[in-house]
């Protein structure tokens, strides 16, 4: 499964949920699939996606937005592995982490990450996250269907191929207006 295929599957399942995406190529490709108000692109906040989604899950608990979705990469997760431990510790049952694990830092010349030898799904299991393992779009769609209905916190370990979609535009956006777009979308729906 290519990353863009995984993102296409995620977008189809999360049109009415807040989605936090890790920086660089993942956010750019997500925006190329659908640049919608429920997406928050962390343009340069390395390793922060799981933490941000965990915070959102905390404050959205009990609201009409019943999930906070995180799209993370293996390299980014490894930059802040403690975030997974804290997610497991806090255990928000409305948190869905989708790890797109291609084993490389695809945004920085495809240099291998430690995920080439480590099982990040096993690490997630060890900190109390409910892990689903997938390697194709059908499996990912089924895993999302489960994670969006059953209590979590979930960690969908999705294996993807290395590489980026050539020619994907840069996200040349103002983070203030982008964050405000997301905030308005979240607060209007959470209050509904």
């Amino acid at each position, binding site marked *: 499964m290519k990353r863009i295929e995984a993102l296409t599957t995620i977008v189809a399942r999360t049109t009415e949920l807040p989605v*936090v995406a890790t920086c660089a190529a993942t956010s750019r490709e997500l925006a190329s699939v659908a640049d919608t108000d429920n997406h*928050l692109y*962390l*343009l*340069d*906040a*390395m*390793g*922060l*996606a*799981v*933490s*941000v*989604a*965990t*915070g*959102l899950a*905390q*404050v*959205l608990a009990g*609201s009409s937005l019943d999930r906070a979705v995180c799209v993370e990469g293996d390299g980014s997760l490894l930059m*802040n592995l*403690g*975030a997974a*431990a*804290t997610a497991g*510790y*806090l255990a928000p049952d409305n948190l869905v982490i989708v790890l797109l694990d291609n084993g490389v830092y695809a945004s920085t010349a495809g240099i291998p990450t430690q995920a080439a030898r480590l099982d990040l799904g096993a690490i997630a299991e060890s900190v109390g996250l409910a892990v689903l393992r997938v390697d194709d779009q059908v499996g990912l769609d089924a895993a999302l269907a489960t994670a969006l209905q059953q209590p979590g916190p979930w960690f969908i370990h999705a294996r993807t191929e290395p590489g980026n979609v050539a020619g994907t535009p840069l996200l040349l956006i103002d*983070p*203030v207006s*982008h*964050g*405000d777009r*997301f*905030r308005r979308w*979240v*607060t209007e729906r*959470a*209050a509904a």
Partner: protein
Amino acid sequence: MTTTEKTLTQQRHETVVEAILALDPAGIAYVPSASIAGIINGLVDVATDAMPVFPVSREEEAVGIVGAYPLAGKFGVIVMQDNGFGNSLTALTTFAVSYHLPLLIVANTRGGLGEYNSMIHSISAPVPELLRAASIPVFSLDRRNDLEDWHATVVEAGKHAQMTFRPVVVLMEFFDHRDAKARA
């Protein structure tokens, strides 16, 4: 122990707890320090589902979690010590500062008067300049401020963060020659 028998440090800890609670935070993340154990324990004692008080393994995590609260219209607080700002600068600048996300950080200072560790000043001493260089406001409290001022400064710093849409830091130095147990 009655109020009048409490040490100056204990009174300051209680005052900071009261000030943080006055801000009605949606959650409080902490990274531990012996110097502010009284603050952390005081907050943990009153934690609720609506106001969780929880540990994180590293300061940047706290910035990510608590920094996300304003994206849902909420506000949060981080309690830490100042040597952790080195861990959190990238998260503070690329997330909280860049996206205009208010949050309050109350941090005890290390490396100054009363310090017993021989190298921590290397990160702690330049923290105010590092933060200000990153456009993060810093307000300071120490033995020369009375309790009323400690309370007012923490509360107003929290309001300032929300008014100006950015992270705001209160640095607290607990050294006091009148309190034998006061620690950096």
